[in-house]
């Protein structure tokens, strides 16, 4: 129980830290949303000053941060200057799409990586192992952006999948099932890119941790007692190998999120990625901070879920605080 509380507290602290850093960095970044207005001779400096103060931007950093935190606690993340709308609902409508993309990608990544990694490790040096190692090192060495653009070009040329957005223009007329199918077809390309990039990393980690456990003395000992290879792999090795792999789950979520920002922009998926990019380019302060906070929230949430899973899987963590007999 203590462990869960500690993890929660840590998650909170992280959020506070991220938000504070966000404020600091956006403050230090050159330029502001009003720079263009200043160049416009028809807008008087007084108007700009009034606008600034109406958004609270004339206050010192600390005051702004305190106000923001205070509001954020009530789910109010400030006001977007560019969209002229509250940030939170704006972000939420986009975040749902990012969540859809990343959770799909995450689930499929793990469904592929774990069996593949275990298979490669259990036949070390075999055909599968060498193929997995080679393919994953190839994918890892190519930047995500290049893969995304390359696959996009292929898809556009071959017209196999729709590109851009998350539904077709006429989707309102479709039945529920057809609508779902339509979304899935739009989702396929960005998800595939993410899965490809992420799987190539995760599969290597799974393989490595299974290999390490396979070499452990207790696995040798279990062999000496006549355990079959499959029982050994799934009952004795995988639960131990799961520990580093699950810790990786939180980590992989981070990778997926940062990857999804790029992939969303390239594939035109209406998630947080394009929104944050736009907001950054136009220096739409609260939208940038809100977007980053959302990403951080996902990431921390993912890590928290991973931690909880560790409790289930690893008795050494579960018992913490209880003395050895």
């Amino acid at each position, binding site marked *: 129980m*203590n462990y869960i509380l*500690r993890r929660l*507290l840590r998650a909170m602290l992280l959020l506070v830290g991220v938000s504070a850093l966000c404020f600091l960095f956006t403050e230090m970044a050159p330029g502001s949303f009003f720079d263009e207005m200043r160049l416009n001779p028809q807008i008087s400096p007084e108007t700009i000053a009034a606008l600034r103060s109406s958004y609270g931007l004339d206050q010192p950093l600390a005051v702004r941060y305190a106000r923001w935190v205070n509001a954020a606690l009530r789910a109010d993340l400030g006001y977007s200057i560019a969209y002229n709308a509250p940030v939170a609902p704006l972000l939420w409508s986009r975040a749902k799409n990012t969540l859809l993309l990343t959770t799909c990608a995450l689930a499929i990544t793990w469904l592929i990586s774990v069996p593949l990694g275990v298979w490669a490790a259990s036949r070390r040096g075999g055909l599968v192992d060498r193929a997995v190692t080679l393919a994953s090192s190839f994918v890892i060495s190519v930047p995500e952006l290049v893969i995304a653009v390359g696959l996009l070009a292929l898809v556009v040329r071959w017209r196999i999948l729709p590109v851009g957005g998350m539904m077709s223009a006429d989707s309102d007329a479709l039945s529920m099932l057809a609508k779902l199918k339509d979304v899935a077809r739009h989702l396929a390309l960005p998800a595939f890119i993410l899965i490809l990039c992420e799987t190539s990393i995760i599969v290597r980690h799974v393989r490595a941790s299974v290999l390490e456990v396979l070499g452990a003395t207790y696995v040798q000992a279990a062999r000496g007692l006549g355990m079959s290879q499959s029982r050994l792999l799934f009952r004795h090795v995988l639960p131990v190998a799961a520990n580093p792999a699950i810790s990786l789950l939180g980590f992989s979520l981070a990778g997926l999120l940062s990857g999804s920002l790029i992939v969303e922009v390239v594939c035109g998926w209406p998630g947080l990625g394009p929104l944050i990019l736009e907001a950054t380019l136009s220096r739409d302060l609260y939208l940038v901070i809100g977007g980053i906070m959302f990403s951080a929230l996902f990431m921390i949430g993912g890590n928290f879920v991973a931690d909880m899973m560790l409790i289930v899987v690893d008795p050494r963590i579960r018992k913490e605080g209880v*003395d050895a007999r």
Partner: protein
Amino acid sequence: MGSNLATNLPANLSNSPGGAFRGDLSGVNLLRVIGLSKQYVRGGLWKKRVQVAAVTSAHFEIARGQTLALVGVSGSGKSTVARCVARIESPDAGQILVQGTDIARLSSRELLPFRSGIQMVFQDAVMSMNPCFSALEAIEEPLRIQRKAIGNRQERRDRVGRLMIEVGLSPDWMDRPISNFSGGQRQRLALARALALRPRLLVLDEALTGLDVSTQAQIANLLLDLQAAHQLTYLLISHDLALVARMANVIGVMAGGRIVETGPAEQIVSNPMHAATKQLLASAKTTAAKFAAITGAPS
């Protein structure tokens, strides 16, 4: 608490349970430990805290050139005493007098001049070092830390070579990685490393444990030879009473974080008082009896 124990026992005992044994009545004690206590707090910032008394009020003293052995089952607090004396750990209470100076509460900077006088060797000491280190680097490391690795390349190699010869290693192996050394050779390396700073006190924490009997005998002899050659003082930590009884002048028996019995090795072996001592001796005695029964030799 030590005095509590003492009152429970006949006063005319020559072994002084729990109390300080006067290792050397002439008073030239190199090390004198008074009321040493150390607690560990298990758990972290937000974890339930459990206080574990690792050592409670330990007293002992060692005369220069002599050996005091602390024996006890694992978990009885021996290693904690060792680490406090070597000041790898800070004691919670008590004094650690090294030639009259209390080092128990010195800061790490104030400790620096004392560090070279007290060196520690533990089980698998070399294993915990970077395996790519050569023997030369491993032996010279403490000199570097103390900024005493002076002289040109040849002088330094000569110095390390002499140390290697002293512990029975061939100087030809100076450039071999330490991972190529066998268990016994690694323990010799650890000794050379400890000797590099010409210490007066060596704290040997299970330094013979985990070695083959034939290697144990070699290293034990080496320790005895080095002691004679350099007037070294040893604090010897072991779970094997029978083994250290042949190496120590004085034996202290630890149980549950306390020194429950102290006395000259001869007396501890021939006339054990405390139950913990008797138990430690019993296992050695049964083995000896089996040995004697089977070989026909007198026990």
